[in-house]
């Protein structure tokens, strides 16, 4: 937002021309890479990406037919991981922000979440395999996969929710308290409502990551190509399908078509996050 007296736009100074040229070149390089990636996917995948492909049952291990079971498994995993991670993540953020626990608990929790955010997904896969698949006996299933993904997404959701809660003005909390609201009533009716767009944005970004995750899902949900009918069935996500098609040389065209469908899904999720954020800023 431009305030009176602040510079509205780039700061200019003498001798900036070469730097500007360099930065422009870098920006164009990045844009070009992304455009090239999309162009490659479109070029190789668009031909195979038909309605028949999206809604068909795969045959000959995915060389022919469609990806309906893969789409279904991906939807199960995305929905399941969100259903687990959102309440846990938002709850943790509320605890950290609103209930001002003792400082040492906060610092331990924060250090843990930061560390979890940096752990490679394959480690989450191994942990999920050991805990959900083996120990709890859920087997290779969409439930195990969802639980594992949820653990992986928790740090993102906790951090974005915390930031959204922190941005709620004190004046609103005080306003609610001054009307006789208890702490919980103020949180539930005012603070969460004000923070909702920010929390939603974090959730949608996490959802994008869940859609694209491969290693953790392969280890916990398996790679079965049958149409999953319950969370206890195994399933193959889009990313895992792409990985298998590509690494086993089954079908290049199908692999690219799957990749294209995946990118479109992730893009749609991220764009809706932007939309939500802008709507939140406006109100």
């Amino acid at each position, binding site marked *: 937002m431009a305030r009176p007296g602040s510079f509205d736009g780039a700061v200019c100074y003498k001798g900036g021309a070469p730097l500007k040229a360099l930065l422009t070149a870098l920006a164009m390089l990045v844009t070009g890479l992304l455009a090239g990636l999309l162009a490659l996917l479109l070029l190789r995948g668009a031909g195979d990406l038909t309605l028949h492909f999206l809604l068909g049952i795969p045959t000959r291990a995915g060389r022919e037919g469609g990806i309906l079971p893969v789409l279904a498994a991906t939807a199960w995993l995305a929905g399941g991981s969100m259903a687990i991670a959102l309440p846990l993540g938002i709850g943790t953020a509320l605890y950290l922000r609103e209930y*001002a626990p003792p400082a040492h608990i906060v610092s331990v929790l924060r250090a843990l979440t930061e560390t979890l955010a940096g752990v490679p997904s394959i480690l989450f896969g191994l942990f999920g395999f050991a805990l959900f698949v083996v120990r709890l006996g859920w087997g290779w299933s969409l439930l195990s996969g969802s639980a594992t993904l949820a653990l992986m997404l928790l740090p993102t959701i906790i951090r974005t929710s915390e930031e959204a809660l922190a941005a709620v*003005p004190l*004046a*609103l*909390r*005080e*306003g*609610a*308290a*001054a*009307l*006789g*609201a*208890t702490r919980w*009533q103020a949180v539930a*009716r*005012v603070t969460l*409502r*004000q923070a909702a767009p920010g929390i939603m944005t974090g959730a949608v970004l996490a959802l994008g990551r869940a859609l694209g995750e491969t290693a953790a899902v392969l280890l916990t949900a398996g790679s079965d190509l049958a149409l999953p009918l319950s969370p206890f069935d195994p399933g193959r996500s889009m990313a895992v399908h792409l990985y298998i098609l590509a690494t086993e040389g089954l079908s290049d065209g199908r692999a690219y078509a799957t990749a294209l469908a995946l990118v479109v899904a992730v893009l749609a999720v991220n764009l809706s996050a932007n939309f939500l954020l802008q709507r939140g800023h406006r*109100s």
Partner: protein
Amino acid sequence: MKMETHGLRVWYGQTEALHGIDLGIPDRTVTALIGPSGCGKSTFLRALNRMHDLTPGVRVRGRILLDGAPIDRVAPEELRCRVGMLFQRPNPFPMSIYANIAFGPSLFGVRGRELDGIVEGSLKRAALWNEVKHRLQSDATRLSGGQQQRLCLARALAMEPELLLMDEPCSALDPTATEAIEELILSLRQQIAIVIVTHSMGQARRVADRIAFFQDGCLVEEGPATALLEGPVQPATRQFLSRESAI
């Protein structure tokens, strides 16, 4: 007295901000708290509805009585239903005009027709009804600053408070909106007790029945508005008033 404080002291951490305030607030009058910035008048005001409870590290000592009963004997939520507050900056909730006014009563289970009636009545008391009656469901945060402050006043009145605390309620408003709020204060004076913190001597003169002058965390002098403004007893009050009128 509607409310009284006896030896009220407040600390922020190790810093003592109020050094033992004894003040009575009569019913159906407007009491204005004046004094230089940082003199403790807002701190005093926020003690009266226990807003300090929300801030860690703030300690309040002394006795505060509402209708003769100590306010720390009841839950703070219950106290705040009887003692409403209007803040320095309008703070509408991010919801509709209707939902803002209904917020307080709906916490206590008021629904349907009864709630509609409270919303309409409160908006009328705050002289906002005619401006918003056709758009009760629109976003309250899109109202102008002056309308927002009247909305917040209506929201406080919806709880039928016996006492209303106002913390420089016009400091973020233009002269027209300020005038509207002052008129409302004068019309409410017949019904409830009002305590208003103000930095404007003009405002104190226009709305106050009684004035209390604070300085450095102490209550220097208090009394009927005209008497205090025309003939202050304490040298500190005289000095402050002459400095203010020079501006």
